[in-house]
């Protein structure tokens, strides 16, 4: 895991990198009638080539829904009610709007361009087939007929790549440990060398030692094969380590989008700040933690205005009526690449300056950056 020099990075992200997957104004409902739950509301997010984008949020915040909707894997009663998801290959420029592709196009596109590693490897593998059969099946479906031998060779290569002994090809899923099953899932996702890999909580069911192994493996594969990753998890501390950029979701919206270091050092949204105060630190001084009062919102009865206002320590009157949009922070001049959805950062409505906790000026932290990069 490398820490890219933070002094050069932020500005480079916005201009130099090519977008691979652009999600624009995506909305998803669960249910068909007037009582439908609005699980995603106008969510926009861009993944650049070679980037690791972390998507963090509590259960019910819509992070998995976003991943499934963007790949058109959303099971009923989930309905995509609007938006577009544009894939543009960084290799040869092919692509298009995934939401408007025909079934045949979509079938060809899946796995080749975007692959997904599902939550819970226990349930994602078919228990009555060997992992070899499942791997070869997928590869064969995307290659010309009569290439079974080549597919088998490729399957062996993939197992080797994720560090599973080759004789495991004829094992059934129950004969493998949880970590190995997760590796098989990753090998499957990488079978056709996709450009985008979406990982939906790939390590949640594993313990920390195994989590570390898997994450390090994914990162080294990413460096070798050059794909982009959307990493979905509720564990912000893990994301801070491995993601280039983090998008924080709350109640079906993205509330903050910034680089990992910025999220950690200079959170701009009260929810992000609260989330960072919910993890007991392993090192450093032991301090009293408060977490965030209240409970995550019920999507059936979302509060008016800002979804977070009932739990927000900085809420003021306008928060109850105005729904904040994802926009620039108060320090736009210094950090044009960041965005946050909070009225505190809207000078037209905010009652005063940004509270100290959320208003660490970007320049003030530069000594800190130097310290951490040299030590």
């Amino acid at each position: 895991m490398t820490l890219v020099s933070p002094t050069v990075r932020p500005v480079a992200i916005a201009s130099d990198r090519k977008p691979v997957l652009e999600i624009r104004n995506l909305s998803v409902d669960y249910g068909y009638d007037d009582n439908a739950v609005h699980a995603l509301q106008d969510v926009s997010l861009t993944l650049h080539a070679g980037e690791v984008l972390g998507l963090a949020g509590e259960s019910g915040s819509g992070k998995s829904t976003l991943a499934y909707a963007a790949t058109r894997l959303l099971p009923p009663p989930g309905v995509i009610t609007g938006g577009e998801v544009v894939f543009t290959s960084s290799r040869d420029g092919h692509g298009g709007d995934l939401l408007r592709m025909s079934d045949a196009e979509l079938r060809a596109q899946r796995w080749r361009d975007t692959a997904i590693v599902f939550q819970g490897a226990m349930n994602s593998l078919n228990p009555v087939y060997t992992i070899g059969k499942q791997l070869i099946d997928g590869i064969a479906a995307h290659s010309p007929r009569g290439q079974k031998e080549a597919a088998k060779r490729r399957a062996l290569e993939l197992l080797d790549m994720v560090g599973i002994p080759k004789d495991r090809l004829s094992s059934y899923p129950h004969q493998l440990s949880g970590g190995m099953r997760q590796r098989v899932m990753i090998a499957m996702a990488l079978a056709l060398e996709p450009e985008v890999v979406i990982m939906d909580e790939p390590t949640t069911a594993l313990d920390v030692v195994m989590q570390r192994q898997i994450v390090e493996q994914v990162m080294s594969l990413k460096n070798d094969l050059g794909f982009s990753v959307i990493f979905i998890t509720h564990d912000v501390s893990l994301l801070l380590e491995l993601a280039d950029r983090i998008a924080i979701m709350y109640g079906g919206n993205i509330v903050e989008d910034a680089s990992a270091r910025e999220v950690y050092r200079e959170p701009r949204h009260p929810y992000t700040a609260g989330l960072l105060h919910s993890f007991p630190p392993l090192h450093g001084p032991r301090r009293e933690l408060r977490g965030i009062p209240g409970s995550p919102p019920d999507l059936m009865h979302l509060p008016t205005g800002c979804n977070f206002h009932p739990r927000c320590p900085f809420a003021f009157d306008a928060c109850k009526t105005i729904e904040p949009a994802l926009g620039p922070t108060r320090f736009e001049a210094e950090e044009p690449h960041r965005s946050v959805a909070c009225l505190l950062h809207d000078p037209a409505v905010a009652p005063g300056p940004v509270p100290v906790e959320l208003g660490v000026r970007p320049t003030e932290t530069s000594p800190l950056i130097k310290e951490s990069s040299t030590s």
Partner: protein
Amino acid sequence: MPTPHEEVTRSETQVDAPVLETIGLTKHFPVHRSRTRVVHAVDGIDIQLLRGKVVALVGESGSGKSTVARLIAQLLGSTSGVIKLDGAPVKAHAGRAFRRYVRNVQMILQDPFASLNPIHTVRYVLGRSIRIHHPKAKKAERAELLSGLLTQVDLVPPERYLDKFPHELSGGQRQRVAIARALGATPKVLLADEPVSMLDVSIRIGVLNLLQNLKQKFDLAILYITHDIASARYFADTTMVMYAGQIIERGPSERVTQHPAHPYTQLLIASAPDPDQLTGRDERPAKGEPPSLITPPPGCRFNPRCPFAMERCLTQQPPVFQVGEDQEAACWLYAEDASVEREAAFGVRA
């Protein structure tokens, strides 16, 4: 509600005898269709729980930590070993003896979505606990106890929650009801088996802080079982690390997390995500998987994964060695005649 801090007036000098103690607690599960082979789930565990103290039991999945909780709760019979409550050995499987035992030792389970019966209201769930453990209470007293329980777990006003069904509550509120149910027995010991790992991150700390307050208020002894060593540091006074059914390290939480002695604890701490340690990460690769508990490796059970494994680690099981003042580790590196190897492994350390 009185503030919990005022109630702790117990003199610190008083040397407590453990309220609950296990000596050599062992559980072997039989393997299907085999007379001789067993799963060594828990092997010779010694735990002392003191009043007003939290002991954390940390380990990865499959290390046997939940089995320990079930053994202490007497939900499973042990293969060998003794459980002592207030100094007297107890063996309570069912009936009155079991009920007397659970009045003192209550358990909170991991998943509040599964541990509350969906067809009963909060009133019924807590009412059962009160009825069973305070059989002589009058109706008015019971009502008072009921709202008292909810107040203690910060579900206020109680009337708002009494007639709710579990599905109407959030995960955090459900876990609070489960805690209230345990408190209904006015226990001395609380066994908390991963009480927050199924909850959303933003409310975990709230539940841990609640347990902390209750501990001080009622002078509870808490066994906190978790796989998250950072939360053990935050919440527990003593931390014990479990690996493959055995305790391999024990000491004050701060000491164990900041200066881990056993190579496994070191691996565990190096693996935990920590945003403050991005640059200074120890690049020791985490290799291998936990061993089979049917045929555990001879000698130290960690030896196949241990970067410092020596010859005797492969054959002899390490006893518990004292490391520093109050920390102990079951690792041959801390044997008196292994100082050379110890320095080679860790460098010269205090």
